[in-house]
């Protein structure tokens, strides 16, 4: 269990550090170039992991709906924007705003899909997040 806690914490640290590293790469290349390398290096690592035990073309690939393949290109825009923003907003504010967008859009997606949950708690959560964004905007630099 404590190993799982460590894994979850480490995942959070890696989300932040990969954004910083890509941000550094974008400084001397471009945000899109940093995103390209991020995907190319990750792809290479996953191909190697695949050769070590996972199938590179598992059963069920044919049944994947076409729209789900958009995840990759969306990731390109996500990594490029994060690389560009982290050098301008800093790590804390970038992380907080990305998390805010992820949470608020997650609430909207859950509502659209009709998933159960407490409306009041979600509304309160969204309001706190918006308050945080408004306060962040008051920083001088």
């Amino acid at each position: 269990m404590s190993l799982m806690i460590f894994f979850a914490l480490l995942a959070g640290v890696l989300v932040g550090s990969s954004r910083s590293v890509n941000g550094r790469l974008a400084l001397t290349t471009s945000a899109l170039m940093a995103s390209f390398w991020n995907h190319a290096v990750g792809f290479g690592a996953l191909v190697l992991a695949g050769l070590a035990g996972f199938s590179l073309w598992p059963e069920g690939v044919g049944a994947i709906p076409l729209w789900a393949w958009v995840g990759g290109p969306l990731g390109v825009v996500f990594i490029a924007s994060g690389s560009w923003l982290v050098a301008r907003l800093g790590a804390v504010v970038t992380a907080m705003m990305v998390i805010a967008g992820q949470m608020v859009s997650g609430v909207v997606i859950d509502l659209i899909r009709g998933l159960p949950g407490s409306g009041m708690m979600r509304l309160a959560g969204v309001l706190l997040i918006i308050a945080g964004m408004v306060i962040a905007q008051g920083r001088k630099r």
Partner: protein
Amino acid sequence: MPEARLQKPSPFLLLAAFGSGALLSLMILCNATVTAHTNGHFSSLAAHGSGMLAALIVLAALPAARRSWRGGAPLWAFSGGLMGAVTVALGTVAVNSPLALSGMIALGLLGQVVYSLLADRFGWFGLPKRRPDGRDALVVGLILAGCLLIVWGGAA
């Protein structure tokens, strides 16, 4: 190397970051669908492969978007993709453990907050140095509290 300078967090920059977070939600929805039909490894492989191709096509079509392939960057600056691939693997393991999704989200947020406060304070990885202040603490507190309410509200 060009000196990176922090800017005032204008509504444009903040909303751009907010929008990229919304994009992340859609991306996770797509990738989870691929996982449901195959497995976590293939989902990550497919997302990285299709993303690599999409980025390459745009880079080839728009010279303005490429500037330089390597930019004289040190080798470690190309490790972001490795970290991302490991993150996905760790997340898959943790979410299927007794921590469950809400526990993993809460701990993942904590990891991000601690990392980013230290990264700003010490200017890690060649990015601008900036001492986090009381305003940052308030922003972090409000947004984390909002996240926890949403995570628990969804689980209720």
